[in-house]
């Protein structure tokens, strides 16, 4: 069965420090993974998807099939990065399976 695990419910880093939000997945097929972000009082929005290999707001994520991971990274955290982050796996073409989320707080 498909599963997305985000082991950290809460993560705090200082401004300017590197940040890594962990995501591990379990899926028998060829996975497509996403990161969604939810800022305070805003709706859930797409941050990035692995197939596009893009960097959004300084964040990157690399799919590691050997470790079944899709960790989200940013070299220098900013205060505006404080938000809830969800890792998501898509299967059956268009059905998302979300992790439980990590709440990131960037300390000034």
């Amino acid at each position, binding site marked *: 069965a498909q599963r997305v695990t985000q082991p950290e419910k809460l993560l705090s880093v200082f401004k300017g420090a590197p940040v890594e939000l962990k995501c591990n997945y379990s899926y028998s097929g060829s996975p497509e993974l*996403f990161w969604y972000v939810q800022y305070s009082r805003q709706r859930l929005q797409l941050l990035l998807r692995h*197939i596009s290999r893009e960097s959004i707001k300084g964040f990157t994520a690399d799919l590691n099939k050997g470790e079944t991971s899709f960790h989200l990274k940013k070299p220098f955290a900013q205060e505006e990065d404080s938000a809830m982050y969800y890792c998501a796996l898509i299967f059956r073409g*268009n059905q*998302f399976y979300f992790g*439980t989320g990590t709440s990131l707080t960037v300390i000034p």
Partner: protein
Amino acid sequence: DAGVTQSPTHLIKTRGQQVTLRCSPKSGHDTVSWYQQALGQGPQFIFQYYEEEERQRGNFPDRFSGHQFPNYSSELNVNALLLGDSALYLCASSRAEPNYGYTFGSGTRLTVV
């Protein structure tokens, strides 16, 4: 473009009652998916509608049903409400192509008392 709009934003219902939530997709989108987000949890897939039919369904009981209209808008109905149905209900729209990104609405906060 207003994006995905959901109504109402908040709702309080009594256990055993029935509720209908509404969603208008983003312009150009023809597929609507519904998710339930309980407190402290990630969104969980309820079902998806395309061409006015339920295309996929998650692990939710038959008390959860839906509908899609010719203009692509959608409704989520929940019968015989339980306290455990209290959650944020999210609607997401997309185009039919596989793996096309979703646009989420702000959600309807349902409280069952």
